[in-house]
């Protein structure tokens, strides 16, 4: 891992996501910035699947499909399709939908959008081919969905040691904080009680995320609780739930762009 490359990559995809959402006038930029560093480490340093290679070596499912823009950006930056295609994001007639879709989008393993679907599918993938690693990235609010807990039981019962579930734990869900909506704590203990190996990490520390994700010597399914900041990388978006919905326009867009660009 070359840390400087991954950091640069994370800010490149941040910038693309900002441009995409602003151009299209769509929401969820806060959710995308929250996972930009995790996605950067995955696509830059962890995932083995490459464009135009037929044999799949691993799977990545973005269960929080509303943040799909940042994954599209990562895929385009990695050459799965052209950067130009990103300009069609959420535009009439485009296949780059606001919630991640695999249809005619090279590199997307699975379409999501309704929360609580990804982990079950990841379980099926991990169960059927133990040689492939499967990464599922979910939001914290998504854990309100009961279907996840069906999958959490399944994964530990079948000792799916090739499965990694990553939680984007920014502590804010759709309307208010997790704490005020449906408290998840003690989150680590819950997953441990369900039989998973659980690690906690700063979800913006590339090196630490990499150290955890590169480890293939698992005996149990692994859950990585990434402590993140919603809107990370743009000061006025950080920890502000408004940016789950709002589009950066005019001065706001220019300021956000400036803050990200200076780190590239």
């Amino acid at each position, binding site marked *: 891992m070359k840390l400087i490359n991954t950091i640069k990559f994370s800010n490149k995809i941040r910038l693309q996501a900002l441009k995409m959402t602003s151009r299209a006038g769509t929401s969820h930029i806060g959710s995308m910035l929250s996972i930009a560093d995790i996605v950067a480490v995955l696509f830059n340093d962890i995932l083995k699947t490459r464009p135009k290679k037929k044999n799949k070596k691993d799977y990545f499912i973005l269960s929080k499909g509303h943040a799909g823009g940042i994954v599209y950006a990562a895929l385009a930056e990695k050459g799965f399709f052209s950067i130009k295609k990103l300009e069609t994001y959420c535009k009439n007639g485009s296949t780059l939908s606001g919630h991640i879709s695999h249809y005619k989008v090279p590199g997307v393993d699975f379409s999501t959008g*309704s929360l609580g679907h990804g982990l*079950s599918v990841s379980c*099926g*993938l991990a*169960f059927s*081919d133990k040689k492939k690693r499967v990464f599922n990235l979910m939001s914290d609010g998504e854990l309100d969905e009961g*279907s996840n807990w*069906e*999958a959490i039981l*399944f994964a530990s019962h079948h000792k799916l040691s090739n499965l990694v579930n990553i939680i984007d734990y920014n502590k804010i869900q759709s309307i208010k904080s997790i704490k005020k909506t449906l408290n998840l704590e003690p989150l680590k203990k819950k997953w441990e009680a369900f039989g998973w190996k659980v690690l906690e990490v700063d979800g913006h520390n590339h090196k630490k995320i990499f150290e955890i994700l590169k480890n293939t010597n698992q005996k149990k399914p692994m859950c990585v609780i990434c402590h993140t900041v919603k809107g990370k990388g743009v000061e006025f978006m950080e920890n502000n739930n408004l940016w789950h919905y709002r589009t950066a326009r005019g001065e706001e867009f220019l300021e956000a762009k400036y803050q990200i660009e200076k780190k590239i």
Partner: protein
Amino acid sequence: MRDTFQKELINISKKNKNLMLLTADLGFGVFDEFEKKFPKKYLNVGVAEQNLIGVSTGLAMNGKIVIAYSIANFLTLRCLEQIRNDAVYHNLNINLVSSGGGYTYGVLGMSHHATEDLSVLNCIPGIIIVAPSTKWETKEALKKLLKIKGTTYLRLEKNASNLIPKDAVYSLGNLNNYSKGSKLAIICVGGIFSECIAAVEILKKKKTNISLYTLSSLKPIDEIKLIKTIKRYRVIITVEENNFLGGLGSTIASIITKYSIKCIHKIVSTNDKTLKIVGDQEFLRKQLGMDANSLVSKVESLIKKF
């Protein structure tokens, strides 16, 4: 029907290394032989239907041909979004097989009355829906469905007839003929066939010959072949142990309208009603006028009109 299914499944599994049978903790005793013969192909995911479809999706993405089994309502209504978004949208070879279609579990109450499964799934573009009426249809359907790259639904009921249709060629979307008559034809799907064929026999004794067809799949339908047959009759009666909305009744009605066919179409179904009483299948069918004698009365009153 379920017995035919599990026996045929064992035969197919011997030749198909990628087949997997998943159950959401139902089918007590039914799959013992399958599990014994193919322990690695059998997986009980527990009482978790959403996860059943999610896991099936992951398995199918890795090349498995999946059969996901549960009781009809649990398998279709509890996890409808997983069926739509995960299985169908990704065009994966996932075969939903349910038991307890219609009022098979009549005495168990409303939760187990599977009378909307066909309708609800029928609204999902791209899914294939089969409600076989006979053992022959069950066997042929299973063979066909497993070969299709896509999501399918096979609705099984308790009893199935041993009859084989007159031409005995099975293809999806077509009519299977079990009785020939003129002027009036019954078209049905599923186990209600037993009442329909009984009605045909009663009428035959009364010197009234009517046609009886089963529709091999509610979706897809070969409309051109279907209208050719429908046009031969002045009266069509569709019979289903299911709500007509989205079911057989509305499907045939929409085809009749689409092609401006001049015929009388009568629908026999659960008629958009939820039964709040319980009873065995025979009893509940009578309550809704879909038993053999009620069908005979309907046919006779219609015939008097022309």
